[in-house]
């Protein structure tokens, strides 16, 4: 392998700065001795410097805003969809019997706690009439009992 070929094969490494020191010295000597190689090196160096001067462009802020607003809107929609799906599952699937049981318990508890119909105050006239009826009935009953003989005799006995 000629010195030219050897040096040309290491041109990239030299440009990248990864050529070992001993080889770098040999490479520089080869450049000095070989005008064609030197020209190639200069071109390579210029290309590399020019490419690096293509300064990386910054992403315009409106693009960042557009990306983030789209993502936020999608996240919001996704949350709403998840909530709707959860509620549907709650109603349709495993929670249905639990929901029915809870409803039943609630009805029982409420019915025991709920106050019953309040006892109506009795009209005094009605109360008095009721009492009179009771007394009358009691009187008639007593009278009837007194009219009957205590030891009734058989009818054929004289």
């Amino acid at each position: 392998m000629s010195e030219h070929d050897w040096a040309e094969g290491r041109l990239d490494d030299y440009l990248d700065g990864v050529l070992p020191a001993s080889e770098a010295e040999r490479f520089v000597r080869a450049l000095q001795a070989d005008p064609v190689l030197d020209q190639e090196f200069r071109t390579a160096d210029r290309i590399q410097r020019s490419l690096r001067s293509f300064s990386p462009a910054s992403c315009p802020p409106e693009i960042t805003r557009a990306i983030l607003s789209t993502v936020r809107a999608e996240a919001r929609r996704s949350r709403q969809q998840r909530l709707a799906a959860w509620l549907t599952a709650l109603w349709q699937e495993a929670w249905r019997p639990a929901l029915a049981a809870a409803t039943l318990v609630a009805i029982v508890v409420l019915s025991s706690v709920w106050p019953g119909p309040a006892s109506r105050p009795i009209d005094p006239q009605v109360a008095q009439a009721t009492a009179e009826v009771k007394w009358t009935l009691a009187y008639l009953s007593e009278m009837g009992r007194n009219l009957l003989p205590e030891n009734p005799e058989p009818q054929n006995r004289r």
Partner: protein
Amino acid sequence: MPRTVTQFERLVHRHQDRVYSYARCYLSSEADAQDVTQEVFLRLWHHVDGVEEDRVLHWLLRVARNACIDVLRSRRSGRALFVLESDGLDDLLDLGPGPDTDCEHIDFQDLLRRALERMGEPYRSILILREIQDLKYEDISEALDLPLNTVKVYLHRARKALRDRLGVTEYRENA
């Protein structure tokens, strides 16, 4: 990976410039680069579960590259992008005015930019990622899903092709 919008926002701020810059260099169009950048990050949002945290940049660059290729395909249907069989560097032989024409007025950087635009894949991506974005070989290898040595070989060939083409121009400039 980002589970919340806030985490995703941090990723966007961390990587947006690199993705945009890559697309901008690749496509030489601000509008197309903006579209590609948006598309890439929205895809990331939709695939958050499939991307590992420490490989986000590689994933983004890979998706960006594919999106750029799609844009180029739509721009110029029928023109091969993956021209590895013919080594993807043939187009550099025709960059407009050649050494036999009056090209002193042509700016070296313009010529270099045009050479880059005409370069096939994966040479173009490798040059952009290595020479412009100063990415490590390992990262380029991950991003383009190519073996490390293949990346080095392709980069060497791309640099050589640029030298061969642009060296003539430089020689004429110096003459």
